């Protein structure tokens, strides 16, 4: 029997856990993509090696379809993997992870097709591919080159698995809502993706497209922006490492994420004209770039919390 949605997640976490990744939990602030979580956005900056994998529900308000469309979701789930630096056998590792979730590469067609990734809001871009499995895009594979406007050294590899797509493929269903979420065990029921998530999709589509109060959203945007700016302005650049270390750069970054999400909400509400769009994206990017700079400064000054060298080398 094909993997259930949750077993798919377990298997991928198991695989990447064995590759020395920290298995993180989803970040608890709304994000548009797994890349935006501090575990990616901040950890890729600076020289310290890191390996991490986590599931991240990613919210894209404009993509909501009231639960009617079999393939489009307001909130979809990504499994995000960061390997920093990227190992030379990264493509092989990735293919092994597919075998680990039951995809026999002798019986399926895998192609790496050019697809470079860019996020203007984060001042980030990378080079890579979309990985196609029998004509279906299942993963975005990116070598990060820049983040928060800063050149990355070493170069991390980012793998973003589209979990609904892979599960629907494995279970051979045409609608994400028909995905089996958990396998039936000991008389307990099995739940479908519809059972678990449909109300979420419907209600948030209604909110995002119809009910969200534009004036309130703008107010919130400005409040979070202001809070972030205030913190960035107060960053103790010239001071002692100890002062820097306790400064809440991470809290400032949460404000960036709030702004980014509110921007997406305003966008889906049709409240941002294209001209304004560029300007608002610029405002969020400025915050993201500011946080990235402070983060690097903070971690040059302070001892970085990274796994020991041995932990990275051991597989």
């Amino acid at each position: 029997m094909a993997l259930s949605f949750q077993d798919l997640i377990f298997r991928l976490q198991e695989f990447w856990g064995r590759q020395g990744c920290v298995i993180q939990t989803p970040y608890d602030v709304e994000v548009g993509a797994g890349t935006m979580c501090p575990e990616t956005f901040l950890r890729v900056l600076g020289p310290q090696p890191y390996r991490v994998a986590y599931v991240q529900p990613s919210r894209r308000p404009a993509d909501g379809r009231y639960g009617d469309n079999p393939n489009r979701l307001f909130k979809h789930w990504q499994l995000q993997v960061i390997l920093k630096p990227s190992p030379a056998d990264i493509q092989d590792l990735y293919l092994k992870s597919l075998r680990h979730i039951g995809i026999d590469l002798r019986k399926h067609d895998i192609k790496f097709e050019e697809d470079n990734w860019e996020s203007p809001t984060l001042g980030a871009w990378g080079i890579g591919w979309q990985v196609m499995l029998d004509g279906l895009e299942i993963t975005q594979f990116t070598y990060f080159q820049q983040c928060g406007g800063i050149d990355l050294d070493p170069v991390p590899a980012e793998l973003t698995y589209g979990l609904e797509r892979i599960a629907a493929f494995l279970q051979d269903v045409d609608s994400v809502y028909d995905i089996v979420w958990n396998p039936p065990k000991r008389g307990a029921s099995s739940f479908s993706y519809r059972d678990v998530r449909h109300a979420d999709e419907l209600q948030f589509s209604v909110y995002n497209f119809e009910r969200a109060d534009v004036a309130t959203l703008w107010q919130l945007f400005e409040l979070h922006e202001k809070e972030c700016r205030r913190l960035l302005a107060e960053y103790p650049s010239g001071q002692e490492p100890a002062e820097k270390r306790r400064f809440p750069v991470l809290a400032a970054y949460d404000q960036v994420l709030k702004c980014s999400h509110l921007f997406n909400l305003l966008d889906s509400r049709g409240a941002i004209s294209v001209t304004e769009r560029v300007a608002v994206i610029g405002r969020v990017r400025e915050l993201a770039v500011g946080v990235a700079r402070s983060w690097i400064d903070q971690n040059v000054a302070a001892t970085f919390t990274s796994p020991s060298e041995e932990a990275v080398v051991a597989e």
Partner: protein
Amino acid sequence: MPSNEFFLEIGTEEIPDWMIEPALKELQNLLWGDLLLRSLVQEDGLAEVHATPRRLVLYIPAVLDKQPDIEKLVTGPPKSAPQRAAESFAQKMGVPLSQIEVVSTPKGEYWGFRQKQKGLQTKELLKTLVPDTVLRIHFPKTMYWTGKNGPRFIRPIRSLLALYGRRVVPFSIAGVKSAAYTFGHRVLGKPRIKVTSFQQYLEALKNNGVVLKAAERREKILADAARLLAAAQPEGSPRRPTLRENPTLLNTLVYLTEFPTADMGQFDPAYLELPEEVLVTVMQHHQKYLSVSDAAGKLAPRFIFVMNLDGDSTGAIRHGNERVLRARFNDARFFWETDQKTPLGDRLPMLEHVTFQSQLGSYRQKTERNVALVRRLAAFVPQAPVEHAARAAELAKCDLTTELVKEFTELQGVVGGLYARAQGEPGEVADAIYDHYKPESMEERSPRTPAGALVALADKLDTLAGCFSIGLKPSGSSDPFALRRAAQGVVKILADHNLHAPLPELIAAAQPSGEAAGQLGEFFLDRLRYYLREVRGFRYDEVNAVLAVGAQDVPDAIARCEAVRQVRPTSNFEPLSAAFKRIQNILRKAGGVGQFPGEPDAALLEGGAEAELDGQARRVFEETKESRDYEMVLRRTAELRPAVDTFFDKVLVMAEDERVRRNRLTFLAWLLRAFTRVADFSEIVVS
């Protein structure tokens, strides 16, 4: 001198398909060029390049073992200098005095020394030349992967195979050492294979699931497809389904695979209710499937997909591809149905939120300008129904707000046209919307109807005038608003629809500000020149001759070029153009054509050759001056050649008598003006 084979395989992660062929060409030119420069290969020697997505390969069957030794003459002090100077020169050369000699130079006798330079061993040279060359290959977008100070390439280099005369050429790039190993197909081959020669390398790849040569991969895809189509032929039907040709897509598939296998999938014929344009776009652009026509030429509910594998033993791959296509078609149907709920006309206000260009406003504003421009240009497209064209211009951009265009941006215009038709707009309006982005290339057709031509002209001219007015001119290879394409499109539409609209008036109608009108005039002249030469294939001197006497009316310029091309091979033409060049020279020396206005005084013309030429010229002029049959005009003009030749033989232009001389120059000036209506013959380069 002995020679050896050299070959190089750069093993990489998947290179974008469209960058591979240019990279190969460059790899070959760079390395071959460097070897040739050092006389290590023959100018007409052989070299081959091959590639798959994961490897770039260069093979040169014969590279000399060693550069030839060279002898270089070093000149020292003059022979007349004191002995000391000669001694110190010999010392500097590191030889006893006896080995330097006297050489003669244009400046006198000097001491000299013939210095022998040993040619470098090829194996030594390649050690540095190969890695340098690899990193010099230009790619449109590169990355670094070993860190900021590491090399840049299109994708990470993971393996290097470099053999010269069966020995490894030792070097390393980004921590990868060259070796005598290659690798097979990811699934069908071994990851590490020992290589001893190019012949054995080819063999090894073949046995490990890699078809190295692009031509062979292309043939395999086409052969597979032909077999599948033959098998799909309905029983009793005389005709089989056919592949819809798409050479660009085919090339993409060739460079996306190391071992391509084509197979056929099907989809529910119910989707054929959607417009073919949408279905084909989904299949070709988004899924990279080749589409299929049924026996009657209509889109068949089938598609051909290409896998990077030796086959689909379980049918899972076909099943998967059919499933993805179904989802894509479902989306398209959903968009199609959703979009219908808001007619195009109701979308106009939504265009306010779609920016055309920050200084040039929204698409709503552009739409208003386009509509007004359609009305101003209407007189130039006499066959276009103005109200229909204006309506089309009003609706033309509304599809930018539809879900379908947001998803399939390449279908802008097409979708608008399809919706307009479905929503009951007149056919003329729908077709004009459908076509208004055309022609997007010189191979593509212009809009089919006069209304479509009018809307397309207005849209392009407004874009050009707007962008030039705010200083957004294309420069070098940077042309973000595709202004060259827009202007080229205007020229092609005027040509295809035979519209005698003067370019300066078209430009003025679009109301460019300040200097923009003049700049646009020059811009259009360049585009017209390009069109006549590259698209129509006229020779450069023919184009120069024609444009020198008028470059405002596109179809007229084409007709004149056509006439010059037709008449040029006739015996009188080139001599006549030589005669005109002579006339021009005479007049230039006498102060310029402008100095001699009006007509010559018949009374002052000399009998004989001069009067004869005057008589013939006037007759031809009267008979041809109104004509647009330029070929006839040129033939008749060319017939003047004997009379012109006789004139120059018998008559002295620079006569002693001031009045006669002036009258003769006026006569020549008149001839020049009268007969350069079609082309300025003096521009023709006489063979």
